[in-house]
């Protein structure tokens, strides 16, 4: 079952990334999760993208393992339950994880506490990431629901 979580996490992250990228191409959002994550470790744009994608997939598997723990506790797993967890995950990401926690730990992201300094700052995401475009909450939630459904589905199959 744990392999289901790992495979589901990988595939779910592929789908989530693809959906967010497509939303970006369609002009719905400026959200770029690999860029946001990668710039936490390097200021070099190219390296940031590479590192960001790697981190993104690691986090995708870590979250899938957390889903796995939830499924183990409730004693069942599947697409629908996974999608529900994905919805909660998406809401958490938009309200707390990316909106509050990431700016606090990200060395290059602006927060309300920043004053004139020496480092360049990334635009903070704002509540439900709306600073990155009005459709960003929708794109984030839908892509996380898809991620959750895939993770839930694979764990259920395994």
């Amino acid at each position, binding site marked *: 079952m744990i392999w289901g979580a790992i495979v589901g996490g990988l595939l779910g992250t592929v789908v989530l990334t693809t959906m967010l990228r497509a939303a*970006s*191409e*369609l*002009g*719905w*959002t*400026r959200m*770029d999760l690999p*860029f*946001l994550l990668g*710039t936490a470790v390097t*200021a*070099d*744009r190219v390296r*940031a993208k590479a590192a960001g994608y790697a981190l993104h997939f690691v986090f995708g598997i870590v979250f899938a393992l957390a889903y796995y723990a939830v499924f183990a506790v409730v004693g069942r797993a599947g697409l629908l339950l996974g999608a529900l967890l994905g919805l909660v995950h998406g809401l958490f990401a938009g309200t707390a994880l990316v909106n509050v926690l990431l700016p606090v730990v990200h060395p*290059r992201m*602006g927060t*309300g506490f*920043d004053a*004139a*300094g*020496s*480092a*360049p*700052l*990334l*635009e*903070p*995401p704002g509540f439900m990431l709306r*600073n*990155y*475009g009005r459709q960003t909450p929708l794109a984030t939630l839908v892509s996380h629901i898809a991620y959750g459904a895939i993770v839930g589905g694979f764990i259920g199959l395994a």
Partner: protein
Amino acid sequence: MRSGGYLPIRDYAAIGDGRTAALVGRDGAIDWLCLPDLDSPSVFAALLDEDRGGRFVLAPAVPFDAVRRYLPDTNVLETTFTTGEGSVRLTDALTLPTGGLSPYRELARRVDGVSGHVPLSWRVEARFDYGGPSPFVLRGGVPIAARGADALAVLSWDAGTVELDAAGARGVFTTAPGSSSLLVLSAAHQEPLVFSTRNEAEARLRATAERWRDWAAGRAYDGPWRDAVVRSALALKLLVFAPSGAIAAAVTTSLPEEIGGGRNWDYRFSWPRDAAFTLQALLSLGCGREARAFFSWLLHASQLTHPRLHVLYRLDGRTQADETELQLAGYRGSQPVRVGNGAAEQLQLDVYGEVVAAAALFARFAGGLDRDHARRIAEIADLVCDLWHEPDAGIWEVRSEGAHFTQSKMMCAVALDRAADLAEAGHLPANRLERWRAESGRVREFVETRCWSEAQASYTRAAGDDTVDASLLLAVLAGYDEAGSPRLRATVDAVRRELADGALVRRYVGHDGLAGEDGAFVACSFWLAEALARQGRVGEATKLMDELVALGNDVGLYAEEIDPGTGDFLGNFPQGLSHLALINAATAIAGAAR
């Protein structure tokens, strides 16, 4: 300075970063900027609609005179405003990224107080997507405008308190001797905005000037008109789309060839036709890297349409160029404003000659062609054998009925000759060599019997026509025949007699399927100078070149056309072909004079 809200085209200067470019007016207003790329929709387009287009105004709030220049050997613009209160210096650049986290695109405007206390005002009216409303909001004191996947922030230091109104973001401030203020427009596309610190933005501005100087220092030209040649090289470099290596024909769309007329086209595409001129210019200036990138792009972009060549390609290599009209007022009421280019679908036979000639130039530079490129050039030559007898739209992309344009046929002969030469040198497969030579002979027979007028003592615009056309000068430049052959000598004289107006040369006088007239074509004027030089008439060429170099604007840039009567610039600006022709004419004259 402005009339009806519009500056003369010659009052603009271009700045750029190899991905996009902006036009800065003599009065400090940036009236044209597309983001994130040169061929993206505009965020500032007051050039095409002074009311709705959007602009970035930065100028003294009192009457002023302006003198400007590029910082030597750079694409960084410096405008000095002199007022009754004192003077200030404005430095504008689209910065080049350095190490560290740079904005996706960055426009930096630094104001240095020189003397006195000068009040200045600035105003940013962002209008994404060709005039679309894009209101600013203040986030953390920074004005931010966003639309879809694009956003921009206005960062300012010592430039007054930022205020927002319905039109945009604005501020006022006063300079003092030695004071320095900075305004930075940070733009993002499909990613969060990057807010730089002042130190970083200032450092990038300095580094940008340094990198342009380094690039210019590497240009190998020490002949006459060096300033004009280096400026042209820098202008061309602004048109090189660095992500792909493509070279755009111009920075703008729909600057009119006739004020108030409808000859308004989008030139933010790359024309394979310009390939040979481009490679010749790049190689003569020692721009081997750019030449290699452009040739690779050319063959990569044309891969999907191979062996047919589209007339133009998008800068990213795609072929879609659907022509649509925008709801903008147009430069001085010149409508329509078009994006996309309907000429993309035309058959223009001369393109094949230019591309094969470019391959020959590249093979000489690189010592050969790789196997895939060689195969494709050979297949293009095969196609020319099948196509040359068809009527086409010609180099001037006429929208009237197709015709057997002489220059198109001549370039078909050049394509076949160059291919055969390459095959003989072992750079192309040799199995079709005889066919290419034989077909070239048939093309030449057509040209010599059907496209020569005894009455004009010249080759004609088209078979059965009796007028001359400036494109015939290209027969000399492309090596259709010996430059000094009697017929080419006579043709050059006929073009001069029939189409020259002072130093300037018109393209043709015949019908082209469009209403109205256009001005004199700058490239044709330089082609005449080059043709004279190649025919050994160096004195005439030098005199003409002196006159043409004096017709550039105050910072050495050229549009597509010049009105011979008024000297006004017409058409898109700055125009790559004009600058290519200047470089090639200067190098040809310098070579002939040695």
